[in-house]
């Protein structure tokens, strides 16, 4: 079972359709899926989920940047996590990184620097962000564009982040994350 966390501000009633549902459509091809808003998620609400995907949000929406205390469950949940855009930025902030202004909108070329389970070599990705993440030393950088870090993995945990939106033009990356940590419950 996958938990997709809706990272959109309650101020934007449209973020769910644009940034969450496309992920759900991809995930449901492989697994059952539940969506919870980030305000509903805490340490005790994660039971039964094999892995967790944090959605992106609208360009104007940086609401989770100031609410990292609500995401402290990321540190000890022990589950594979993939953060997309705002999801990645929030993961980075929770683990001691910081964000800086970096606007990229549209298709961007990125290059892989470290072997990983999600992608390899160079790829074109859809970017939609006003901020880049400067991750802490707890993370390896997996990929970069000419301007900023595009993908990270925690050195000890199965916690990943991608700054781009794989649900738009790189859906295989979402599927690879899910397949990598799928739990086979057949007897």
């Amino acid at each position, binding site marked *: 079972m996958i938990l997709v966390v809706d990272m959109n501000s309650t101020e934007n009633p449209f973020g769910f359709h644009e940034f969450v549902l496309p992920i759900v459509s991809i995930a449901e091809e492989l697994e059952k899926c539940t969506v919870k808003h980030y305000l509903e998620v805490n340490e005790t609400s994660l039971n039964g989920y094999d892995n967790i995907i944090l959605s992106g949000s609208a360009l*104007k929406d940086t609401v989770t940047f100031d609410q990292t205390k609500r995401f402290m469950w990321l540190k000890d949940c022990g589950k594979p996590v993939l953060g997309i855009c705002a999801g990645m930025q929030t993961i980075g902030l929770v683990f001691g990184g910081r964000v800086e202004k970096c606007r990229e*909108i549209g298709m961007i070329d990125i290059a892989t620097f470290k072997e990983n389970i999600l992608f390899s070599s160079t790829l074109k990705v859809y970017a939609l962000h006003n901020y880049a993440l400067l991750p802490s030393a707890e993370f390896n950088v997996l990929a970069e564009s000419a301007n900023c870090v595009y993908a990270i993995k925690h050195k000890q945990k199965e916690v990943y982040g991608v700054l781009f939106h794989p649900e738009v*033009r790189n859906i295989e990356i979402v599927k690879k994350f899910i397949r990598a940590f799928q739990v086979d419950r057949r007897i």
Partner: protein
Amino acid sequence: MRLGVLFSGGKDSTLALHKAAEKAEAVCLITLVSENKESYMFHTPNIDVTALQAEALGLPLIRKVTEGKPEEELKDLDAAITQAINGFKIEGVVSGTVESVYQAARIQQICNRLGVWCVNPLWKRNQKALLEETVAEGFKTVISGVFAYPLDKKWLGKQIDEALIQKLVSLSEEYGLSPSGEGGEIETTVLDAPLFKKKIEILDSEVEAQGNSGVFRIKQARLTEK
């Protein structure tokens, strides 16, 4: 949230308007009239019908003519959205983009620069499901342009119903067309929809077609009671 809707008068922008109006306040329509028929950004057949559609919807229309030169036309869109911000105090812009990152990225850039929300209620939705939704919701939509093989003049002016959707889906599987015309294969004009207070009646029209390219042009139309 007060919203301005990028409105071509076709099924996608009209459905996006309906979805936006469910959760926020749609206060104006914004139409770019492109003089370039090949424009990747703004659709052209029957764009003048948007004035009648706006009247049917009871919404003010900001109408701006653009030469339609790639990238230059974005300045005209920027100006039209700025006019909506100043004139109608909009806080967000609604687009009916489904798949095109070319369109989506450019609208996002303008909204970002102007500091307004960019709302895409149809983004990444299944195209067949969107077509079916318009029929189920009671949209009366006609095909007003065909621009790809094997579509031809037989399709022009046809109303979109379940049977037509099935044909479009079959063709999309066989020839790789986008079933909802997202790749510009078909253009549509909405004559009636739930938010229309009156419906559009076509009084005079013509078909202009050559091979796999053609338009169904509405020459004269009026609003009638529903």
